[in-house]
């Protein structure tokens, strides 16, 4: 007869053994064939590399951001696969719906961590932060679809693009150094979360570097629906230039409330604060058309940059229903970096996670076909900030993406000096 003590001992042995088994699976460097070392997610016989995508496929963030970025990533690698793959290896994906929830992100990461070589797309600052320690423990590179500057401090997270903080600094460099406005009366309105704090940090650095006359720093909650108090503060402060670290719906309400109260400053929108959908709001269209957006990269359809033609062809071939969308372009551009890492690791004969990490650190520079400016990578946090430049755009309903550049691509004084 099986005694309780025997049963208990068996369970203890099993529990003690599980982490060891899991650890073996997680840190396995896999097999070696033909001089190529392979890690999790690499099948040397079938010649496939499996990458993970952790993105919201449902919920409010899915449609406007999550799905277009994931489509951009997939379109890039479908093209690679159709043209022989990477040294004959085809790239495939395991996609998980995170619903933009940090908890779900961790759960989904744990589900796929032993099946993928790296994460080709993890959307959102907070979800990505939730997996950063797990990824570091697994030596897993994660390409993060967010511009939070705090990510630059994380060894295994890959940023693509200029962080929010530097976007703000470049916007004020444009006003002071390009337009020649000395000591302008400035303010910021920001949402009270990590994204807003990143914008606020950049604003405070800009105030110091450019000697701005800071007249107001106004916050609001993500769930706020009325902005009269915040706008009344901005109006009372007399700010001539107001930076907005907001999301599109709040952008619409804030600008409309200001107009209603007879306040019409120069609005400068952080890149996520603008959506082309805002131009579909009839009452808002004339009000927002004076606003600037600080972002970077080629405008959708600008075939003067070498990567645009290929991206448009791939979009038409693989995702024909995809509308012109900066987020699709971001996902596509982001994949240039993933591709460069895989290619370099393969040349080094090491497709393990550590091999990928070494390849990433040795990349130096990645050309993204002009869709985004070339990214530069190194081993310190400052070197992991891939780009520091921005373009100032004016909202323009006649353009396919709703904006047209009014400045060249430039890096301001503050952004070039900023430390991470």
């Amino acid at each position: 007869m099986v005694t309780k003590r025997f049963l208990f001992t068996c369970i203890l042995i099993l529990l003690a053994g599980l982490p060891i088994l899991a650890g073996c699976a997680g840190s396995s460097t896999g097999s070696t064939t033909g001089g190529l070392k392979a890690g999790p997610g690499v099948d040397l016989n079938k010649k496939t590399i499996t990458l993970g995508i952790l993105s919201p496929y449902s919920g409010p963030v899915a449609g406007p951001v999550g799905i277009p970025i994931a489509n951009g990533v997939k379109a890039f690698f479908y093209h690679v696969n159709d043209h022989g793959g990477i040294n004959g290896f085809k790239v495939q994906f395991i996609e998980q719906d995170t619903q933009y929830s940090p908890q779900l992100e961790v759960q989904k990461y744990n589900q796929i961590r032993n099946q993928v070589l790296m994460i080709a797309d993890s959307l959102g600052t907070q979800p990505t932060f939730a997996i950063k320690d797990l990824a570091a423990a697994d030596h897993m590179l994660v390409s993060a679809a967010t511009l939070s500057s705090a990510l630059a401090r994380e060894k295994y997270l890959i940023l693509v693009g200029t962080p929010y903080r530097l976007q703000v600094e470049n916007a004020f460099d444009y006003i002071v150094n390009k337009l020649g406005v000395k000591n302008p009366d400035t303010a910021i309105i920001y949402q009270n979360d990590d994204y807003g704090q990143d914008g606020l940090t950049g604003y405070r650095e800009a105030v110091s570097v450019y000697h701005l006359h800071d007249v107001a720093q106004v916050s609001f909650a993500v769930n706020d629906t009325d902005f009269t108090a915040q706008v009344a503060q901005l109006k009372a402060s007399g700010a001539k230039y107001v930076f907005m670290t907001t999301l599109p719906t709040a952008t619409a309400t804030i600008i409309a409330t200001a107009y209603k109260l007879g306040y019409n400053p120069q609005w400068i929108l952080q890149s996520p604060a603008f959506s082309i959908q805002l131009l579909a709001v009839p009452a808002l269209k004339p009000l927002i058309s004076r606003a600037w957006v600080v972002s970077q990269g080629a405008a959708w359809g600008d075939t003067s940059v070498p990567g645009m033609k290929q991206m448009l062809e791939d979009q038409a071939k693989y995702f024909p229903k995809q509308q012109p969308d900066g987020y699709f372009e971001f996902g596509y551009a982001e994949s240039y970096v993933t591709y460069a890492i895989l290619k370099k690791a393969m040349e080094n004969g090491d497709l393990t996670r550590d091999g990928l990490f070494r390849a990433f650190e040795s990349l130096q520079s990645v050309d993204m076909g002009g869709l985004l400016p070339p990214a530069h990578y190194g081993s310190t946090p400052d070197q992991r900030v891939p780009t520091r430049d921005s373009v100032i755009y004016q909202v323009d309903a006649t353009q396919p993406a709703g904006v047209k550049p009014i400045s060249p691509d430039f890096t301001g004084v503050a952004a070039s000096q900023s430390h991470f």
Partner: protein
Amino acid sequence: MAYFLQLVFAGIAQGCIYALIGLGFSIIFKASQVINFAQGELLLVGTYIVASAVLNWHLPFLLALPLGLLVTVVIGLLFERLVLRRMIGRPPFTILMITIGLDIILRTLVIVGWGSRTIPAATPFSVTSGFNVAGVHLGSSDLWTIAVTVVLCAALYYFFRHTRYGLAMRATALDQEAALAIGIDVRTVYALAWGLAAAITTLGGVLLAIDSLAIDPNFGNAALVAFPAIILGGLDSISGAVVGGVIIGLTSVLTAGYESRLPAVIGTGLHEVTPYLLMILILLIRPYGLFGSRKVERV
């Protein structure tokens, strides 16, 4: 002074929105002791219907509004008839969980139907319509919000005091068994409560959307902000929902207007917590809210 008065006007208008949304919660709770967590999504569906009717189907706003109200009333009635009626006598927690289920279903339907992107809201006013008095801008949408709330409160007062169904609802709220014993059709009362609550909440949502200009699937979260208003006013009190809404609206807007003058460590985001601080304070003094009825149990 103009700055202060501008904030007071905005606070009252905002409070009226909370009051309308809060009324929806209170009417259902009063009739059936159920807290409907799908209230925000009923508002969401109604607002999207009105927006689509105006912008896509090119109906005049005055036709689109009743259409939006009708759709949410039908949803409320169907939910009451097909689901909640079968749950009579079940633990309140079970019913509460079902309303959370309805909340998720409605939000998903909105995302499936309209997508997750920001869409324009329907508005009958231009952004600047209204007039200025002593440096204070009185916007048309805010004036209409206040007027609609006042008229609706008067109508509800009359309904609950002087009409057959209003009296039936009050009797059912007091004692369901006694109401049944004197021949009141409790099922009709429940249906009426759900229909009425859905319509009033949707009206609140449409008025809120007019000011927002744009809406997205998170728009239903506005109902969460109305929650401290009804707790503060008293969950089962219609007048409590209105007074609570205006108090919360004023507190929130006035705090937001002055918080930047406080040290950053206290001031930043203070307006986000003041409604809840106020709610806790009032509940400590009056556990059933300002106008809530104290439960008396014989032991």
